[in-house]
């Protein structure tokens, strides 16, 4: 079983990376980009085969290590 965790900055938190990416895309001539945000994904291979308990476990991992909940939000996706 796999878990994919999407981590992004909370709304309102300054995202200098995203801003810089959007700006350079515009500079390079990609006109249609109005905003960019950068986030990260963490993909975990899990030995568990119960999606329910896996999700709870990953939830804990996010809180304790993977996400910085002071400034980041996260979403967990469990894939078989």
């Amino acid at each position, binding site marked *: 079983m796999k878990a994919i965790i999407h981590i992004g900055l909370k709304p*309102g*938190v*300054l*995202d*200098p990376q995203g801003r810089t990416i959007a700006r350079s895309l515009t500079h390079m001539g990609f006109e249609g980009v109005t905003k960019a945000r950068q986030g990260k994904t963490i993909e975990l291979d899990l030995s568990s085969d119960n999606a329910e308990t896996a999700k709870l476990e990953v939830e804990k991992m996010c809180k304790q290590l993977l996400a*910085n*909940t*002071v*400034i980041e939000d996260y979403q967990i996706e469990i894939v078989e």
Partner: protein
Amino acid sequence: MKKVKITPEVVAEHGLSEKEYEIICDRLGRAPNITELGIFSVMWSEHCSYKSSRRHLKKMLTKGKRVIQGPGENAGVIDIDDGDAIVFKMESHNHPSYIEPFQGAATGVGGIMRDVFTMGARPIANLNALRFGEPSHPKTKSLVAGVVHGIGAYGNCVGVPTVGGETNFHRGYNDNILVNAMCVGLAKQDKVFYSAAKGVGNPIFYVGSKTGRDGIHGATMASAEFDDDSDAKRPTVQVGDPFTEKLLIEACMELMATDAIIAIQDMGAAGLTSSSIEMADKGGVGVKMNLDKVPQRETGMTPYEMMLSESQERMLMVLQPGKEHIAIEIFEKWDLDVAEVGITTDTGHLVLTHKSKTVCDIPIAPLGDDAPNLNRPYDPPKNLDTLYNDQIMDPVTRGTSYNDVVTTLITSPDIASKRWIWEQYDRSVMGDTVDSSNSGGDAAIVRIHGTNKAIAITTDCTPRYVTADAFEGGKQAVAETYRNLCSVGAEPIAITDCLNFGNPERKDVMGQFVRSIEGIDAACRALDYPVVSGNVSLYNETNGQAIPPTPAIGGVGLIKNLERYATLKGAKEGEHLVLLGKTDGWLGASLYAHLILGHAKSEAPLYAPPPVDLEAEKAAGTYVRRLIRDRRVSSVHDLSDGGLALAAIEMAFANGFGFKLKGSADVPLYAWLFGEDQGRYLVSVEENSLNPVISTARTLNIPAQKVGTIGGSRLIATGGFDLSLQDTHMEYESWLPDYMAD
């Protein structure tokens, strides 16, 4: 926009007392609206108004022959000859770093650099003074990792070398770490910029990043005690953008080379509020700003939010009318926001408009003049007993070998190498770092670009001593910086301080605070070594437990000629070790007492710390500088934690040679080796300098004696320890990396 009703709860939430609220109503002749209340609350917070500390800070020596600007501006300014000036300051970012170590520490570095370049000085060196909880505390490791990463990430990116600092671990900081950052900048004396907004009708410009909802209430938060709900207050943490800071430095430097700026001020705590008010107050003018013009990152921001936001990397400037286009051109070139947001007026009021309505109209003077200036009651700490050496047994009698003593000390968290930390800091960028943490040196040495002179910089404080005796501890912190500067051959010029204490509403804490300041001041006066800038951080406590009193001192000195300086390195095989200064073998509050005698276990301090004889301090320092100037010594180290033994060992690590120390007839061996008597230096000298160095010292009434020789690969104290240099060095280097590697 919804109108917020000002209830007693709202007033209390803003940290204002009933009496303070009454004063506000009285000055306004009406009740304030929420924006005005917010403005008063941040301006009268501990952080901005220094309400508990002001009257005590006033006592300090702030003038000297090299002082160009003392406290009161963004940073202090000193004269280092040839029209050059050094601008420096130290500041705390304790609470934010505890909540979000990476961003908290990073924005701390960003903030202190802005304080320096806002005065026209290009930052040339950063330092950091860090205090963490005990290593076994579950949070400590991740706090160390996050803080160090944050400091490095910001300073490295901006391209300013981080050249030194200090790091302590103690359970007293478990829930309240200290992150103190110091920045040193270089300016031309005739190009120093100040914050007084002189003149009426001059345009006010906002430059840098856009304003978001970051850190609203950071200033009041920094002044409020933590409790278990602190997690709920989390979203107030700001995010730093060192890339923008770097652009801001370059843009400001470019603009400062023109004559367009009348006044300039960075937006630090309380952002737009404190920057605009301070500029107006100092210039004796009023300010009118249109908040619709403020560059905004988010939609729907209220005036309250804009005025209290602590978004980073922003500055406010008053420009010469007619020169606006110069600023606009430069900031646009650097891809930064730039907007004319207001004008200086003759009303003496801060007037804000938003969506064509006046949302704030308050007289500026009361914000400063009527700011609370408290005379908090305090209990001076009582004096502790002296620990006499005949009360102590020899370690061997107590069942510990001298070898074990050394190993315990050398691998203790405060002493063990901090390489794991400072290797994450770019120390060599800018190409002028002569000496940094890399040599374990007493003070970092940074050359003034393109010249043959340099400044020496150090930060010091021994909280162990301050806890035991706030007055002596305050003195000692200043004296240690003085000693560290002298150790490299620099003439000590001035200090900055960062006074970290607990809750000033407690009499014992306030007593520590007052006595520390008195101690600092006593040292400054005796050493002719004034305070030119500083910062106070109070309420460093969690659930009623105050941190150890920690007045961190940053010292700056001048090396006039880089052909004549010293470091820990340079000693040669066969040279002699000479000890300068008086040794009684003082063990009270020493590292030895704490770790070997077990005094660290005691909740309350047990014995008095070593007193500092300031006259002797000055004499010894002056003599050491002279020895360095006359090339009489090949390496120098001051004696601090762990006394003679650790000083000799640290020198051995730097030089790669062992040594043989002998004992003394007058002092028991353990006290001789590990006593922490103040005002002492260990120097290495060649054979033919030995007698002159000692005899000249004696004519100056400075105790001096040969204590050993350099050479071999063993660390030997006759009748005491005998250790392998290489193994001991490895143990010294491994503690922190082993700890961090989980």
